[in-house]
């Protein structure tokens, strides 16, 4: 099963949930943890994996053969992403704008353009005790994360429980990360920000037709507005995780919640049971 853990906004404790769930479930079955938050990967800081394997990820960008190019300007005209500028005698490429659509190299009338690799980041793989660990790190200054996210997701295997840590937000990186999962856990907190952003995330998942459920983090027991919302939208509340200063301090030091509080293992087992129940129904 492929399971995504997401949150509309950052800082709701999404990584706390995904990491603790991975550690708990690894006692029972094979688990892979895929950190798709390639802009700010954090899972490794909690899981401390031994990284054994590293792979550079590239996207294609155009390279211009000055000998063949006659500065006709056609490539710049057709590039929808303004990644090319043609000056007399010099055609410039802005790789950070390029979406690798292939328009320029397929349609340059002089066949002066060839695609070459442009490295945007790395995928690293390893083990954190029983958990198989994969994450991506986007090079600083690179705007385009989806190809790297795709490379991280390509490391999923079918015979494992795959837990995907999804980047915050509702735009392309989040969408690319949740696409194709069987279920998505949405982590929220009982504040107006939390509820507002939960609603946005739910809309995205509805649009993608991915079933979801909610985990209320830092619950102080008074989460009525979130529960009302879930009731209205017919989304199951899967688990509530209490507000706990010890856990917050553990987090600051890079220690996962289930290792700070062993008894929380139960909380995450229950969470997984509920997810399985919802998925199978």
């Amino acid at each position, binding site marked *: 099963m492929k399971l995504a853990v997401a949150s509309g906004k950052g800082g709701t404790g999404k990584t706390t949930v995904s990491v603790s769930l991975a550690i708990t479930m690894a006692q029972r079955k094979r688990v892979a943890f895929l950190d798709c938050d390639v802009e700010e990967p954090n899972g490794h800081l909690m899981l401390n994996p031994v990284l054994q394997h590293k792979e550079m990820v590239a996207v294609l960008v155009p390279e211009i053969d000055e000998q063949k190019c006659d500065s006709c300007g056609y490539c710049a005209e057709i590039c929808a992403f303004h990644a090319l500028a043609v000056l007399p005698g010099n055609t410039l490429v802005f790789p950070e704008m390029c979406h690798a*659509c*292939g328009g320029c190299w*397929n*349609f340059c009338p002089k066949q002066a353009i060839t695609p070459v690799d442009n490295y945007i980041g790395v995928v690293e793989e390893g083990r954190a005790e029983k958990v198989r660990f994969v994450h991506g790190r986007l090079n*600083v200054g690179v705007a385009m994360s989806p190809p790297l996210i795709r490379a991280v997701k390509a490391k999923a295997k079918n015979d494992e429980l795959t837990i995907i840590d999804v980047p*915050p937000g509702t735009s392309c990186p989040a969408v690319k990360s949740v696409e194709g999962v069987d279920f998505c856990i949405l982590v929220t907190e009982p504040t107006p920000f939390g509820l507002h952003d939960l609603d946005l995330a739910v809309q995205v998942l509805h649009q993608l037709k991915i079933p979801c459920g909610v985990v209320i983090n830092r619950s102080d027991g008074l989460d009525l507005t979130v529960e009302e919302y879930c009731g209205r939208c017919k989304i199951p509340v899967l688990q509530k995780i209490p507000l706990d200063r010890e856990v917050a301090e553990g987090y600051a030091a890079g220690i996962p919640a289930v290792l700070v509080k062993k008894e929380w293992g139960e909380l995450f087992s229950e969470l997984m049971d509920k997810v399985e129940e919802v998925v199978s129904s």
Partner: protein
Amino acid sequence: MKELVVISGKGGTGKTSLVASFSVLAGEKIMADCDVDASNLHLLFNSSVIRQIPFYGLKKARISEELCVKCGDCEDYCHFGAIDNSFVDGLSCEGCGVCKLACRAGAIEMVEHIAGQIEFSDTEYGPMVHARLGVAEDNSGKLVAEVRKMARQIAEDKNYELIITDGPPGIGCQVISCLSNADLVLVVTEPSRTGIHDMERVLSLVEHFDGRAAVCINKWDISASNTGEIEDICYSKNIPVVGKIPYDMTVYNALKNGIPYIRKKDSPASTATLGIWDSLLKML
């Protein structure tokens, strides 16, 4: 005119609560909420939307059934797997227009596509520009640029001296789009392993784009040792730490009640925030 951009790398560092408090303290200014995925700033103000304009994203491909001869060329050329059996999947189409160039039957047209809304609001602390990116939309960097452009325009019209920009999370296209021409970038961090890690990434991004940065540490007393480490990092990079805000339940309670915490005067967090604001004004 000066623009202060507030970013944090990771979410949940209290950035928006801090921006809201700055907005209470600042005199004449305009606010720009550039977290176009999930704009939150308005939730802390009494705000009402006075005007909305559509944000056009890249056009999307549409195939005319009448003209299409089902040759499959477009599908071969589309690098995004957005065409299947002469049908365009709007969610996957990135609007590159390559299929249109490839189609010899002239069956493909690129059509306008509204990707979001830019909203102008009035609040008790002044005008605000924010945006709502359509669900599952691409091109958020461009929308961020639009929001900033609109804010700048209003500031010019009204002769305001200051723009306060609440930036998006991450280090990707949205944040990059927030950094150009910013006069000062305030990075809000917290003393956790993840907070330090993300701060370092976001600071190198600011450096990469030749920006001027300052750092403030929220909930600094959660871990005094991590706070020390942050101060050392900043010192070695020659980046000023303009203040430290203590862990204070006032902030969480104010957030729950939907108000900027600075309005609870004399709380430890408010006092620290006043000091930070003074330093920022001096730097600007």
